[in-house]
Structure formats: C-alpha cells, structure tokens
C-alpha cells in the first residue's frame, strides 16, 4: 500500500463525562496502531501536545451548554474537514438536556451559593443544533467496536457501517429471553438503536435507550403496550434519560420532567434555544 499522509485527528470535549473519549483509550489492543495510522494532533485528555487545527477529522464529545462552547463549536467546525459527534451528549444533548424543560437559573441557584459566578446556558443541546455534523456515533457511552469501525472507514476512505436497527433485532439473534414479554420489564429495546449487543436484556434489565431512538421508532405503539398496567407518568419517565432530548423521545421526556420536578417547570420555547 502506498504511504498515505496520516489524517490529522482531534478529540475534544464539551459538557460530558469523558467516557466516550475514554473509549478510544480503552481500545487497548489497537491504540498503538491507531497512533501509527492517525496523527492525534489534539487530544487534551491524553497528550500535552496541542493543535488548533486544521483537522481532517474532529471527534466531539459533549453537548453545548455554555456561551463559550457555543462559540467554540463554530470555530472547531470551521477548522475541521469532517466533524463526528461521539456519544449521547454530543448527539442528543445527554442527561443534562433534561434541564431544557426546567428553570435553569433556579437549578443553578440550588446547586451554587453564588450562581452569578457560574457561566452556563439555559439549555444543553446537541452539536447538530448549531453546526453541520458529518457522522455520529451513538451511545452512553459509545461502543468501542463502532469507534474502531469509524476509524477504519476513515482510513480506508469508505462510509462507516453502523447498524440502524432495533436492540430487539440483535437481542433475538443472540437468543435472549425477551424481558418485555417474559418478565414484564419496561424495555425500550423495540425503539432503541443497537450497538450494545443487547446488553441490558442479557443482564436481566430493561433496555434504557443508551443508543437513542432507531430510525422511525414507533414510540406511540410501544408506549401503549408499556401503559398496560402502568400509569402514563411511569411510561413517560422511561424516555427522560440519556437520550431524552432526542426528537422522538422529547414529548414524553417533557411530560416526565414536569411530573418529576413540578416546581421548576418552564415551557421549552423555540426562542430560548441557544442556537
């Protein structure tokens, strides 16, 4: 194979837990080879050498939740040929997006004695709400195999092959007992994109939608099924987690947050979106 210039890769973090970029460092068997095939020019968690770009590929973890991040993402986009969001925070807003239906100043004041010293937007929003995103890796956290597939595809110049089918399909192929049918657990597997190898049903748990909604999920139908024997509020709260701000889950999440935190509710108006 002819020697190619190594792609310049950046890995950056916004509002998030570090888990998705840690997934890169968790590719222990492949990390040295990845370092040989890619030029990791910006990855503050792992290297003191810095680069302000330009990047051939930028991996972005985390959601947009401060005024500074709002400016940062526009600048980063301008310096990146390809921008890939990694994980539920960057792709759908993450758990912190639950504040999008609340009174953020009140939240801030309840956590910080001097809220005026804290820089924060009223909302935590996905990267794609602000700039063009070329590809996304789902999951809370992302799956290492999917990250490896993305990197391989980038190196070979082909499209990454990422599944867009329900957890349910994979669960059936793995021969698991259906926790929804057999144990009456409120499983979101029928609606949720796979990538986890149907992890939770394999651990006797209901899927809680770490990878977010699959393409064209029938949320209404599954909610009706789950509502048999459960109060509507009990069904709604299932959605109000790590991908609760994904468009397909948003209505249910908003209702759930209103019930869970009635005192701090505010309407999510379009004008308040920080774009």
């Amino acid at each position, binding site marked *: 194979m002819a020697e190619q210039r190594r792609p310049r890769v950046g890995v950056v973090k916004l509002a998030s837990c570090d888990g*998705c970029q840690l997934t890169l460092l968790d590719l222990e068997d492949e990390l040295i080879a990845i370092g040989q095939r890619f030029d990791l020019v910006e990855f503050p968690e792992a*290297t003191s050498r810095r680069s302000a770009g330009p990047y051939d590929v930028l991996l972005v973890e985390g959601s947009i939740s401060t005024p500074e991040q709002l400016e940062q993402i526009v600048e980063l986009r301008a310096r990146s040929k390809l921008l890939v969001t990694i994980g539920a925070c960057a792709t759908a807003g993450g758990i912190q997006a639950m504040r999008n239906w609340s009174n953020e100043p009140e939240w801030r004041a309840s956590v910080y004695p001097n809220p005026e010293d804290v820089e924060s937007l009223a909302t935590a929003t996905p990267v794609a709400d602000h700039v063009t995103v070329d590809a996304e890796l789902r999951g*809370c*956290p992302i799956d290492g195999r999917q990250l490896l597939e993305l990197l391989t595809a980038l190196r070979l110049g082909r499209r990454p092959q990422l599944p867009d089918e329900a957890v349910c399909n994979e669960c059936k192929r793995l021969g698991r007992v259906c926790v929804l049918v057999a144990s009456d657990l409120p499983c979101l597997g029928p609606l949720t994109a796979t990538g986890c190898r149907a992890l939770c049903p394999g651990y006797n748990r209901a899927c809680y939608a770490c990878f977010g909604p699959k393409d064209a999920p029938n949320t209404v139908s599954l909610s009706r099924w789950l509502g048999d024997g459960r109060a509507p509020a009990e069904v709604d709260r299932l959605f109000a987690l790590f991908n609760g701000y994904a468009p397909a889950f948003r209505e249910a999440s908003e209702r759930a947050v209103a019930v869970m935190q009635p005192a701090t509710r505010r309407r999510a108006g379009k004008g308040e979106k920080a774009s």
Partner: protein
Amino acid sequence: MRTPTADGERHFDIGQLTRVEGEGRLDLRVASDGTVAARLRIFEAPRYFERLVIGRRPDEVLDIVARICGICPVAYQMSAVHAFEDLFAVPIDPAVRTLRRLLYCGEWIESHALHIFLLHAPDFLGYASALEMARDHLELVGRGLGIKKLGNRIVSIVGGRPIHPVSPRVGGFSRAPRPHELDELRAPLEAAIAEARETVALVATLETPPSDREPRLVSLRHPSEYPMSDGRITSSDGIDLAPGDWGEAFHEEQVPWSHALQARAADGVPYLLGPTARVSLAREQLHPLARAALDATGISPEDLRRNVFRSIVARAVELLHALAEAREIVADYQPPLVPLAPWKPRAGIAAWATEAPRGLLFHRYEVDRAGTVRRAQIVPPTSQNQAAIEHDLALFAPEVLDLPHDEATHRLEQLIRSYDPCISCATHFLDLRVEHDR
C-alpha cells in the same frame, strides 16, 4: 504567558491543563514579596447532577450518577447504592458484597493503570503523551495498556460494560456472573500481579522534584479490609465518623474562580484524599503482596506522605493491592444465593461515602416515603482535593517561577497531575495562568 504589571506583580497564564480528566486551568498570582496564591479554575460546564436526580427513584439514580464520570462510574454507583441500602435496611448477600469489591477493584485497576502509565509516566520520562512515549518505551506502555484492559474486563464481566455498568442495583446485581465467566481472569491476573510488582519498584526509582509538606489525610478505614466501600471516615488528626456523617466535619464552599464547589474541614484547613492518604492511613490493611512491595522500595512513610510527587508510588501500590484482592475473589468466587434482595423504600436521609480511585466520594439523598429523591448532595474527591492542590501549588510555585515559562508550566502541571484530578467529576476543573500582584 508572563505579564509584569505596574506595581511589580507578575502574572502567569498557562493554557488548558492536559492529561487530566476534564477541563480546567490554573491561575497563579505572585505578590511583590514573592508569596503565591494559587487558584484552580475549573471551567468544566456545570451539568447540575444534584438537580437531575430530583424526582428520581434509587435505581434510576444509580444509572444517572454513573454519568458524572466516565473514568470512575462504579464509584458513583457504589456510594449511591450503599446510601440507599443503609437507609432501607436491605439485607445484602455476603457474596454480593464480595462481588461489589471485585467490581470496585476492576475500576481501581483501570483508573490507576490509566493514570500511572498513560497520563503520569510521560511527565517523569519527558514525553507529551503515552503514544509518544511508546516510540521509545513500547514495553512499558504495552504493560500499562494490558493491565488497564484487565481492569476494564473485570468491570465488563461483573457490570456488563467498562463504562457505565448496568448490573448494579439497589439490593445487589440484576445478574451475577456464573463461576466459569470469571475463569478467563485467572491467568491475566497472575501475569498482571507480577507486572504490578515490577511497576511499584520502577516508579519508586523515578526522580521527583523536591517537595515537602505535611498534609492532613482523610480516608475511610476498616479494621479488616483495605478501605473501599465500608468503614469509618477517618483523618490523620483524629476525625472518626460513620460513612454517612461526612457533613459533621466537612462542608462545601463556592469560590468565584471555579465551577467546582470546594470542600473544606470545619477549621478551613485543606485535606488530602486518594492513594497517598489511603496507603498512609491504612497501610496495615494493604494486601501482604502490596505491603511487601512498598516496603521493598525503601521509601519511608514520611517521604510517601510529604512528597506530593510520590503519589505515583502510592497509586502503583494500590494497583497491586487491587489486582491481588481481585485474584483472591476470583479464586474463591461463589455466586450469591440472592443476587438481588427485595427492598422497600422508606423516608429519610440516605448518606454514604466510598473510596473512589481518587479518594472519598460522599453522597447524601433526602428521600420521601416512595423512595423518590427530594434533595441531593454529591461531593467528589477532586472537589475535596482542590484546596490541598491550591495549597501545594502556592508552596511549590516560587521554586519554578524563575524557570523558562514552558518549563515552569510543565513542573506545575506535573504537580497537579500528581493528584490525578478528575475535573469532569468536580464540576460543580485545568489551563495555567500566573498573575503577579499586590
């Protein structure tokens, strides 16, 4: 950059701190008489976890608080699960307790190996990253990655995946591994124990900058176990509290330069958490292999405690401890008879502290009769170490500020990295800026 100002003060601005988890910077203000004030500026975006858990039930809380930190999610799950089980008086199968220790050992192994080999060792050997270090020290980096992988594998088998495990539940585990599932860990644990012993010996030979301070140390202590999920909150100067009573001796304060609340003892004196504190206070409870390896280094307890740069030795000793304990648990593993005990909520205060890889992690939840969280307080180890870091920086800075800027920055960053700060956790963390004034 270094900016002299009109009244002879000096100001250092050092960019975003690297090889730490999360975002932060450091401000140093150097007065004309040479005294230094250090401020860790944690500008990691606030995510309001203490509000996000309101209206949630205990098992939801376990899933949510894991997301505070991708490096130590098990710690967050363990502090929360013990808090709830204590309040609800849930009878826990002894085998569940042991399996939780194995899970926690896995996280300590993964987190400590990440820090020792990938984040901290490059400082001592003069590289910008582990990947650059790998060009000259492939065997060392490979060893670190191998041990880290083993820690992740333990967490995966017990918890389902290395980051944000799914099996921990109030009452136990949604699923406990079958004995044969742990068999694959036996040979790698054997090999890793040998490598970790060599690592303790190796990091003890690393040349450290001069450093001398007498820190107040705080750690859980338990009569028969190395501190992890059980025991009493103790200090080097006589604090002795139940694990839910953290608030009786400590409190949180907000400082204007940080998104991380700072925890302080009642008298305002900074205190130190983490491997150095635990190894110093609970040396007697270390696994015999880990204690023997530490003794063999010839490093005195005073040197280990007083020299901040020796933390890599304490961390390596704990890495060995966690591997040795994991080996014993795997060898004797019997699945729990009751992997998931039934429980009923009751109103009250659920509070507990466990030892995250970086130190004591305190959770306190006020819950109603249905078990729904009404108020929450989460105090991560880095919030508690902040004041100690600032204190040590102020002591250490005068020795390096006359060095060329890049070298001064490097030395100060090295000091901060010695604490293995986790900024993602602490927000509610690092760049270095030095200001000379007053």
